[in-house]
């Protein structure tokens, strides 16, 4: 959070000695507020003032890192309550939960299944981010062995779940260098958990029966020297969790309430697949930093990852690809030619289907200021004329040896003009990209 010059000034020595190369403390404070100088330029500032200023200028929600090298995850440091106000910065980390009652042979299978939970959407690979391992009954050594095994088989950072410090410590023994997240410090165990978090330098989840108790506990834990804290917001009922997530986000951002100025972790509790996705969607949209789920069927994870991708898209940046002639596959002069817009979602959807068809194809992407087919049409960002000119500019005729172009079914109205004014033979394609492969196979012919 940015401090004003006056707020900074209050903490300076107020002697106007000039050693900072500014005539007065106030002048120096103003420069600091504008972030043009750094505090150590004043040799006289007290340790206490340094701490106060550092604290006050820290962001209202802390950034917490989990994991290292391969797939690290950062959560927190969010700045708004609604995405249109700026954007949501750090996509909810999605964790799949395993229990320690897995048998030897099952572990490999489960982890392999989890490793496979990745998809490509809009040209981006989307996947889950963490594996949570819950301790229920086995001995500390057995739990540690399981943790070691999962770590070996996958690249995801881990969440270690147990209320028993000795169990966590055993697991940290084999996994701490991977910077796992510890779950959870509660009323009974927080001192033990805090000392583990400190000793192994790992982030720590904290739990309380309500937000009041949670705030007390984070304050205590901070005193014990642990700063990388994640708030556990885990009521059984989606309704309560949603409200607590909202309150904690408001407290952190609107009230700058430090004891809750951390990212959150939530858990689904529903056993039914559809209901579980309902809960999970709620927590992704509304302020979940980490979401721990049990369901890991592909048809459950795909919509969840899509929700996350959509909600965390930056609303201020037009999502556009470069407008040019793309060659998909080993094209030749006989390959089909299709046109589309430069909205990323539109382009990648079309490109994906062209790839699926296994028919090498030219895609001429028209500059439509990042708008999709109907939006570009309704917003006057493309027309038959624009397409005709784009095809000329992209020197398409030098590449293709035919005269046919396929246009999106939603803009069939462009056909006549493209044919009459630009001499193309126009094929009106389907309205949905999913039908492009069949169209290329059955309807495309060179004219």
């Amino acid at each position, binding site marked *: 959070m940015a401090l004003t010059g006056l707020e900074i000034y209050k903490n300076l020595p107020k002697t106007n000695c000039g050693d900072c190369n500014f005539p007065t403390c106030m002048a120096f404070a103003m420069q600091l507020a504008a972030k043009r100088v750094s505090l150590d330029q004043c040799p006289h500032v007290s340790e206490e003032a340094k701490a106060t200023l550092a604290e006050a200028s820290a962001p209202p929600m802390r950034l917490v890192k989990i994991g290292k090298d391969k797939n690290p995850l950062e959560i927190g440091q969010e700045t708004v309550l609604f995405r249109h106000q700026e954007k949501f910065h750090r996509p909810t980390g999605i964790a799949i939960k395993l229990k320690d009652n897995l048998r030897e042979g099952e572990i490999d299978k489960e982890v392999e299944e989890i490793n496979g939970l990745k998809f490509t959407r809009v040209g981006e690979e989307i996947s889950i981010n963490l594996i949570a391992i819950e301790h229920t009954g086995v001995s500390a050594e057995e739990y540690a062995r399981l943790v070691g095994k999962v770590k070996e088989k996958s690249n995801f950072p881990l969440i270690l779940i147990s209320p028993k410090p000795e169990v966590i410590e055993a697991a940290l023994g084999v996994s701490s260098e991977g910077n796992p997240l510890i779950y959870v410090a509660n009323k009974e165990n927080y001192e033990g958990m805090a000392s583990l978090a400190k000793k192994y330098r790992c982030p720590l989840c904290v739990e309380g029966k309500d937000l*009041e*108790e949670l705030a007390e506990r984070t304050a205590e834990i901070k005193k014990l020297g642990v700063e990388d804290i994640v708030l556990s917001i885990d009521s059984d009922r989606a309704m309560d969790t949603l409200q607590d997530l909202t309150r904690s986000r408001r407290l952190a951002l609107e009230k700058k309430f430090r004891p809750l100025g951390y990212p959150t972790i939530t858990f689904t509790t529903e056993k039914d697949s*559809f209901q579980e996705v309902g809960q999970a969607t709620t927590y992704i949209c509304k302020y979940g930093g980490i979401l721990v789920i049990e369901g890991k069927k592909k*048809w459950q994870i795909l*919509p969840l990852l899509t929700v996350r991708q959509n*909600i965390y*898209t930056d609303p201020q940046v037009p999502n556009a690809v470069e407008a040019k002639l793309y060659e998909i596959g080993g094209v030749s002069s006989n390959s089909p030619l299709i046109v589309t817009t430069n909205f990323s979602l539109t382009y990648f959807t079309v490109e994906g289907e062209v790839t699926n068809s296994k028919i090498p194809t030219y895609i001429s992407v028209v500059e439509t200021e990042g708008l999709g087919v109907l939006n570009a049409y309704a917003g006057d960002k493309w027309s038959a004329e624009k397409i005709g000119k784009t095809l000329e500019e992209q020197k398409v005729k030098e590449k293709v040896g035919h005269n046919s172009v396929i246009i999106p079914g939603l803009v069939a109205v462009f056909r006549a003009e493209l044919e009459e004014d630009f001499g193309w033979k126009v094929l009106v394609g389907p309205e949905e990209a*999913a039908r492009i492969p069949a169209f290329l196979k059955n309807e495309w012919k060179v004219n």
Partner: protein
Amino acid sequence: MTIPDVKQKWANPINTVTIGAAKEGGGTRTHTISVGGSTTLPFLHFEGEIPHRPVVAMEILDIVPEDWHPLLSKYFSDVWDNPGKWAKKCVEEFGADLICLRLAGCDPDGKNQGPEEAATAVKSVLETTGVPLIIWGCGNDDKDNEVLPKCSEVSAGERCLLGSITEDNYKTLVALCKADGHKLIAESPVDINIAKQVNILATDLGLDAEDIVIYPTSGALGYGIEYVYSIMERGRLAGLSGDKMWAMPILCDIGKEVWKAKEAIVSQNEVPQWGSQEERGPLWEATTAYVYLLAGTDILIMRHPKAVKEVKKYINKLIV
């Protein structure tokens, strides 16, 4: 530790709109359905009142659909040649709160049916079901202006929700609603100002703001949903903050969007890495609904019975 209060005091509640009229209200519905009325953002019970839960309408057509996916036809093909039976099945077997009859058969580019046929469909749905009714034209302005008056007339007093008026086409429908006591869907293309403008135009003609439901357009999950989501959130915040022209309940029409999304319609054979289509299809629709619920939708129009059932079940978990 005491923590600061983060309850917000909003200037204005969302309007309550009641759809359907029972006997005491001059209609023949077995009950009415009210939406809106909340004094806070979606599901924030700690902050305000949420007197009415979001509801789910199931979509039916006045003709046999040509392009409905097999995952849908499997539930409806035995009844979809008859709107009355189709509606009844949706209510009795699948628990629809309301029926949305879309007059697709009137489309001049399709079957081009006339006002009489449309009115017959309306009457048959009113006869076989007791739930409140949404009647939606085919989307062609001229044709809707020709067909909807008859539909409005045969359902006069039933307090249906009629759709839809736009910036360019509102006069006929506003007049009908005032004459026959219906409510109106005000449509706008994912644009916060146009949404407002339609409401201003309609209320200037004497329609009560309480007779309007906002339809800000809908996109499916993965196909532009985030744009609509944010328009809805901004609109709802404006409504609660005192903008009377955004203080209406919101409607999302998602069935028709979802059931053209690839993730809903392609088989597991074609895309093995996406898993079971039987589950994936309805879950895509349910998840689209889950997202819109958080942005403030009050009425959802949906298609798949399983998606409808699960969404209704989940709504009950967010409402005390």
